[in-house]
């Protein structure tokens, strides 16, 4: 565990995010991530949390499902972060940050929604949508 601080920014640079602690990168292949990013969603979360440092007024939030929202910079359109409504937890687009070379993909989720035109290298676990929900959605009590 480290106390490193990572600063990320959108394409125009007006929204800046701060991630604290060890980063973890996961890849989501769900149809909604594909449509939003235009590509699989590579998400980073940080051991000690993520916050907005500047540009909050430029952030628009789209209510993308019953359980989550997706926020983007209204000036440059950069997809910024995904947030579960029931939790105060964000995961940001990994590409916003310069992450250390030691970071590897932890998990691929919703792998059964992945189209055939790409595949990732590496042997990180591949979870189907059902496996992802069983592992993370829990019983809704947390």
């Amino acid at each position: 565990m480290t106390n490193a601080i990572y600063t990320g920014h959108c394409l125009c640079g007006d929204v800046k995010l701060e991630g604290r602690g060890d980063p973890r990168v996961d890849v989501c292949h769900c149809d909604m991530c594909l449509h939003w990013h235009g590509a699989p969603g590579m998400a980073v979360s940080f051991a000690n949390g993520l916050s907005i440092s500047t540009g909050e007024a430029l952030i628009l939030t789209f209510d993308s499902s019953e359980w989550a929202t997706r926020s983007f910079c209204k000036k440059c359109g950069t997809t910024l972060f995904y947030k579960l409504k029931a939790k105060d937890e964000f995961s940001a687009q990994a590409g916003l940050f310069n992450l250390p070379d030691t970071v590897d993909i932890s998990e691929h989720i919703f792998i059964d929604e992945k189209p055939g035109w790409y595949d990732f290298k590496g042997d990180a676990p591949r979870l189907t949508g059902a496996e992802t929900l069983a592992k993370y959605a829990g019983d809704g009590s947390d």
Partner: protein
Amino acid sequence: MFIDVSVKDGDLRFESDSTLAWFESSKHARRGFCSVCGSSLFFKMKLNGAPWGVLAGTLDLPAGLEIGEEVFIDEKPDYYALAGERSHVTSAEMHARLKEALK
């Protein structure tokens, strides 16, 4: 990660573009996105007749397609790599291509 499908200028038809927004991302190119949901849509060079680089995830593509080449490969971070063999193009080579296109 940016994976795009090249569509000839004139071959892309909008059924609706009322929420389309553009960002001028450099002197030579702009990027389109949906101003309501933030979906990234396409990249377009400002050159006359330049093709649309439509983000692959926005399209329901036919089976059997494969990625043609990977560009700006030297700017790729270490935490991911795509599987499969194809040509890898560096940023220096891409800048040379851009220079040629702008002639």
